[in-house]
């Protein structure tokens, strides 16, 4: 998992509002920089990196909630959550398939048919998750979530 990018100039005496602006800006950049190649099911680390970035962004939005205009904030948080859910719908099967593959390697050959039966089900969920993620990514672009996130910083509470 990629380490969170440092937020420059953050210190305990900075105002909560200034810290909110600096942190959300960095976490939003982190998220949108992680978009590349996430629909590639052969490289499961990309979707993982973007999901972690989404979680971090969601966490800072919730932590700094009082610093934002409530009407602008609510739909932005809702859309970040929707993106996080779509990333989870792809990432959870990725992790399960990885775990089942490790189990298959460690268990006797006579157990493989049962493990394969479960893996087939999970693979179908992975494909569905990827479709959901493609829709969510397109919606993120269409609604210009990045600009709306940065807009929160210009129109504080």
């Amino acid at each position: 998992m990629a380490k969170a990018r440092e937020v420059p100039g953050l210190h305990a005496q900075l105002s909560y509002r200034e810290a909110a602006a600096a942190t959300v800006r960095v976490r939003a950049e982190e998220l949108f920089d992680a978009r590349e190649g996430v629909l590639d099911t052969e490289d499961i680390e990309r979707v993982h990196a973007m999901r972690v970035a989404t979680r971090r962004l969601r966490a800072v939005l919730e932590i700094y909630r009082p610093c934002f205009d409530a009407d602008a904030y609510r739909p932005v948080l809702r859309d970040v959550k929707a993106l996080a859910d779509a990333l989870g719908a792809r990432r959870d099967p990725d992790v399960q398939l990885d775990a089942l593959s490790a189990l298959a390697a460690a268990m006797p050959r006579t157990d493989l048919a049962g493990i394969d039966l479960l893996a087939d089900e999970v693979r179908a969920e992975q494909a569905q998750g990827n479709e959901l993620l493609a829709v969510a990514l397109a919606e993120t672009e269409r609604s210009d979530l990045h600009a709306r996130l940065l807009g929160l910083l210009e129109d504080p509470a």
Partner: protein
Amino acid sequence: MKARKVKALDPDGPLGDQLERIVRVRTAELFAFMPRAGEPDEVAHLHDMRIAAKRLRYILEIAEESFGPYAATASKRTKELQDLLGEIHDCDVTLPRVLALTGRARAEDVETARTKAGAAKDLEPKLASGGPNAQAYRGLAALATYYRARRELLFDRFLVFWEALQREGFRARLEYAAAERPGGPEPSADGNGRAGEPGLRSALSTP
């Protein structure tokens, strides 16, 4: 599980003080799950405790630079706790799934046997082992055993880990660290933090 509301956050106040308020609420939220989540059958409670650990972890990731030195250790411990609870949760989700899949596989094999039997007066025993999933049962049973046994093992580890956190004084030390400001004034000689703020003495008396 909805997060507890943190009152009196001031957008124009210093970051460290606002983060301290949030950390205190999130820490209390996490600790409120015990001792109930220490019962092996309290699956939903344990799941909610994982969410509470995640919330505390994320605020500590942001706050540790603004707090005293134990905050970084607390952040690491909280991540360890969250990871452990996450592994237990995986078992809690996957075991019922394996059992349900076994049930569906058996139902399919029963239907196949019944179809092959046609209008026979009785079922040929060999039809029971010739279904499409006949080879899968052994592996499914092994998976069910694996997830059940792993869950028990991880849950025991969770209890040991939680006890170690108590011995380490996790909560009191975290609350003290949250009241410290690196480079700021030292806690006063009476053992308490800044005026009007709970410090080490009151933190140690927290249950």
